């Protein structure tokens, strides 16, 4: 896979179709890949990788990159294409300036998941697609790849690329098993108090590092409401539980209906807060109230929350579900 990807990147650079390539760069160990821009064949040979460790979503970077001089090439995994589409739809990415090569994905290994199995001192990992071999300071281990996947890949919504100019390998299918909503259903079954406790327990861990916001491809405001110097508060820490809750409520509402469920927020949270569940609940509600809708799946469908139709569900559905009138 990696060879094929690099070969195409070199060809497109050489014939002048693009002047740079956005992809993943190898790190110190197998797992610490960094998004990067490559401008020459030498740079590609020196550091470009595409393998089972390339979890970072590249789409957000294209907002800035697509505004620079000349056309760029980007490699997108299935989930990244949804984010990309959504950003094109919101006029954030300039589509004409981007050449997309879709790359297949069978799930990305998540080092925190591996470490949560008690594996320490990981100096290297290789994956053959089925199994992951992990070399550590304390010996070698092998485990099925399925056990090494992070949250976002364990409940992958689709293996289908929804936008590309060219594809390497075969395209996959949308996952319709609904398994990604299992945890949301569990939360729905809780009493309001239990649910509140669940979220307080999670959100009280938040250090307000902003990783979730800054990585989120739906969080693209030029100036974020949480960076407003006139807000009267510092916005650098959750000074109390109110501020803690508000940050997440406002952020999640702001991306509601635009969140593609890419899972990046949870992947990057240093405190392991299952942030994606908040928006997954909204996604589930949108599906139930307005009919199935997947943000980023195409460029045309009007987003239910931005659209008014006579068929829209009545607010009374909220009461039917036990809400207060």
């Amino acid at each position, binding site marked *: 896979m990696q060879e094929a990807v690099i070969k195409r990147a070199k060809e497109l650079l050489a014939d002048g179709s693009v002047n740079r390539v956005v992809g993943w760069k190898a790190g110190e160990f197998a797992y610490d890949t960094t998004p990067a821009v490559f401008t020459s064949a030498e740079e590609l040979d020196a550091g470009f990788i595409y393998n089972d460790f390339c979890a970072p979503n590249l789409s957000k970077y294209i907002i800035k990159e697509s505004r620079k001089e000349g056309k760029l090439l980007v490699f997108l995994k299935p989930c990244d294409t949804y984010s990309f589409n959504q950003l094109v739809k919101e006029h954030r990415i300039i589509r004409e300036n981007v050449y997309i090569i879709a790359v297949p994905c069978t799930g990305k290994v998540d080092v925190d998941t591996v470490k949560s199995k008690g594996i*320490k001192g990981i100096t290297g990992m290789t994956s053959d697609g089925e199994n992951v071999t992990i070399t550590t300071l304390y010996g070698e281990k092998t485990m099925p790849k399925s056990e090494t996947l992070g949250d976002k890949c364990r409940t992958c919504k689709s293996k289908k690329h929804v936008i590309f100019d060219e594809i390497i390998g075969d395209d996959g299918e949308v996952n319709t098993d609904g398994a990604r909503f299992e945890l949301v259903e569990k939360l729905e079954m809780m009493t309001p108090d239990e649910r509140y406790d669940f979220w307080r327990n999670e959100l009280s861990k938040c250090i307000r590092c902003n*990783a979730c916001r800054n990585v989120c491809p739906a969080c693209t405001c030029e100036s974020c409401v949480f960076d407003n110097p006139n807000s009267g508060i510092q916005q650098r820490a959750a000074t109390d539980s109110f501020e803690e809750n508000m940050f997440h409520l406002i952020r999640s509402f702001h991306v509601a209906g635009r969140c593609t469920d890419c899972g990046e927020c949870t992947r990057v949270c240093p405190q392991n807060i299952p942030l994606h569940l908040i928006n997954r609940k909204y996604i589930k509600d949108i599906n139930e109230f307005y009919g199935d809708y997947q943000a980023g799946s195409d460029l045309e469908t009007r987003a239910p929350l931005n659209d008014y139709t006579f068929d829209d569900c009545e607010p009374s559905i909220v009461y039917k579900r036990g809400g207060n009138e």
Partner: protein
Amino acid sequence: MFRLPADKLNEFFAAIASAQSLYIPVDGDDGRASYKKWTEGTALSKALNTVRSAKDFFFPQTTDICDFNMNGKNIEIIDNRTESEDFVIFGVRACDARSFTILDKVFLAEPIDTYYATRREHGTVITMACTEPEENCFCGVFGIDAAAPEGDAACWMTEDSLYIKANTEKGEKFIESIKSMLEECDSSAVDAQKAKTKEILEKLPFANVSTDYFRKNTLLDIFGSEHWKKLSESCLGCGTCTFVCPTCQCYDIKDYDTGHGIKRYRTWDSCMYSDFTRMAHGNSRNSQVERFRQRFMHKLVYFPDNNNGEFGCVGCGRCLSRCPISMNIIKVIKTFGEE
């Protein structure tokens, strides 16, 4: 050196906690460790280190500074600080213990930060030697010995015992206070553990990373280097690296208008944020390249320049494991070093 049988650990914690608040690293439901106040039943984490650093004890993410009450033309200033309780932090790793020395150089230099100083006075730091360092650890690069940590007193845990030795007067006082539980012993078991750990430390992937470049080149050459652009290219400006870092020390002070008075408080700030340098005249760092460069220039150049060559990093590896895009101080040091 003193010894406590490992099965007495709980009683040991109870004895400490009966006299003052005790904080130890505890595993969360997801296995990630954080410092928690010890109460009966709290178990010591087996994780190598906590996600948040131990600096919170002395330099918390938010500090209430004072309140102002307005009464006509009079302003009353109310100092409502409460940090007057003695406390013990147990299980601090060598890297975090050194971070306190670094923070001391900032907060205890004139003019002394009395909020920090009070907390330092009231806190006793009991460290724990590492036996199974992670691949991201590089404390050794900064002359820190993970097998013999600093702190008021240092501990070593073996299968059947906890060994403890005082490093400071405060540490001696601490040991004195719980001496009835301890027996005096020689250092043979600890020496054996140290030797074993040393072997692992020498094999760590970053054990031999060199920081010479930052000593041999001038501030301006490093500042003006071409490397910063590439290194910072994909930085999200999230600030996670600064919030998990035990030595990051920047803060901002804000007045909150309650409607009938003012609450003045400070919170951590991050040089990675776009408004960090926003001033009346504008902003002096308008791009992420400049902000990113600041973080590493501070740790690797400015701090040592002002502190007899001591770097502002302790090699704890937190920024390595927590950066969403895996860009970090090791990649910076290596990129320059390989020039």
